[in-house]
């Protein structure tokens, strides 16, 4: 789904001053290699780094390595000039941990655990998790099927005031 989606959506180009920064960042990682086998430095502290690499990687070997073009795609999705549609589309793919096309309870649970941090003492208890997932589904699941599909997700995110400002990476 990756390549067609990118072509269909027509990822917006990065603004003019970005290419130098992008090239500089890329050469920091791998001066000679065509692919990154580990996540970029700008994602090191990000709990979603593996998901991001998986979503944007187009390598045939499915080892989540990112080529320069993949890196550019990722940066343009996360840039300021990307529209909210593109961002919410890719956010949906990133949050879909089991890649079944919908955000089910397991996905939401993994998402919340990523947010609160690694480690036993930084997790919500199971009752709290249950209550939280219940609330999220109440707020966003319109057709009441227990999962959030893409259009429901995009609907909920379009009314969220913080999404545009938090879902971006600035080099």
């Amino acid at each position: 789904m990756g390549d067609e989606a990118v072509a269909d959506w027509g990822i917006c180009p990065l603004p003019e001053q970005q290419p130098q920064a992008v090239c500089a960042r890329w050469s920091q990682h791998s001066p000679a290699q065509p692919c990154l086998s580990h996540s970029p430095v700008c994602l090191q502290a990000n709990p979603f780094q593996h998901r991001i690499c998986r979503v944007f990687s187009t390598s045939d070997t499915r080892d989540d390595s990112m080529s320069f073009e993949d890196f550019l795609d990722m940066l343009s999705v996360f840039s300021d000039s990307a529209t909210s549609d593109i961002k919410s589309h890719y956010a949906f793919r990133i949050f879909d941990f089991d890649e079944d096309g919908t955000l089910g309870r397991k996905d939401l649970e993994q998402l919340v655990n990523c947010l609160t941090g690694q480690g036993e003492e930084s997790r919500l208890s199971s009752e709290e998790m249950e209550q939280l997932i219940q609330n999220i589904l109440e707020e966003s699941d319109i057709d009441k099927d227990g999962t959030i599909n893409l259009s429901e997700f995009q609907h909920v995110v379009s009314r969220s005031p913080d999404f545009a400002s938090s879902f971006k990476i600035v080099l």
Partner: protein
Amino acid sequence: ISTSFSQGFLEVTSLFYGYYLVDAVLISITKYNLPLAYLLATFAYLALNFLWLLKRSVEGFKQNLVHDADPFQSYCNKVFAGWDFCITDPNAARLKHRSLLYELQTDLQEERLRQKIAERTMEEKLRIYSLRVFINIIVIAILSGCFYSIYRVTVFSQEDSSVSIRNDTRRDLVKAGDYSKRNYCERVKYLNIAPFMFCLSSRCVFLRLASIGVLLFSLWSQISDCRNDKCEPCGYNYELYPCWESDVGREMYKLMIFDFIVILAVALFVDFPRKLLVTHCSWKLVQWFGHKEFEISNNVLEIIYGQTICWIGTFFSPLLPAIATIKYFIVFYVKKIVLIHTCKPAARPVRASGSNFFFLVVLLIGLLLAFVPLGVSIAHIPSSKACGPFRSFNTSWEVIPDTILQFPTALQHILFGLTSEAFAVPLFVILCIIMFYVIALDRAHKRVVEQLREQLVLVRSGPALY
């Protein structure tokens, strides 16, 4: 200690009101009218504080409204848009993780409590309300007992006419009453929801501000008490208080220093030993007592109390703000050390945003309360004849009418017109009209918001119908 400080050499320094001279000071060519400047500086700092506090309270109020206004999507917003993808520093990432965890936990807990309240049966409600009424009665009884005892001590020491005992005993009583009631407030911990935290904290606030009020009231009743007819022309008791403003200033200064010493003493002799005891001693009683939790509201109320003293005292003792600055500087670092080394993280995560507004409002109330004694001292009680810049005036306020009378007549007419009834009454009426208009606008907006919310719900459940 502080008694020895303030009597003696400090009394004649610029720390106290008595130092300032009534004559205008010559600075190069112009004459600097010191009495007028003193009074205007007082008004200026009060007005500045008032406007700034008002501005901050309004901002906090707006934030509070916005925060409560959208219960629709708070969870989705926090979960889907919670992580800031710009974070690259691991420390910042750790902090963000923790703040997200606390926010989610607080929200979930508030929701659980709301549900629990909604599900309360009739008997439970009855039991809880009667318990609350009972405890409130006890608190009010203790409060009135304390104030009455302060008053009795004042009267007793007046008959005894032993000046130093009066000061210390009264101050100690006030302090003792303060702490006993504060401990009582802390023990009533079953109230843990936001509106009831408000009531609980308001009680403690009222206690502290009222204790200053009672102290000042007893001071003033003594100053203006004229036993014999000798002091009638002066208007105040000039035998005991030849320079009463300096006396009041000395009281405020002593209160401030005492507050500072108490904070240091509590930190040193209560918090650290408690931590040592709990870590090394394994008696059940000690373990049940447990580690100290950092109580934000108590600490903020302490600061507000100190600040109110500073505001009241600055007119009588102009260098008090400088002392207060140094004091709070030191107190901050002491509290920081106590927090880091002795406290355990609060068992319940605390939502800071709502409390911010509450603390600002209490600070504003403290400032408005500070206006009262200052107003009485400046305008009503005659200024002392033996010292101070207002020696030649009847009351401190008279500087201003005197200065106005020196203005050109046209300006005088304008100013008199501005303060006459013919101007004030229409102004008041216009302000009332504006206020009613704004209230009506607010109500209309609320109705629009409600209607839009209902529309959203319909739109949301709309597709399900198809």
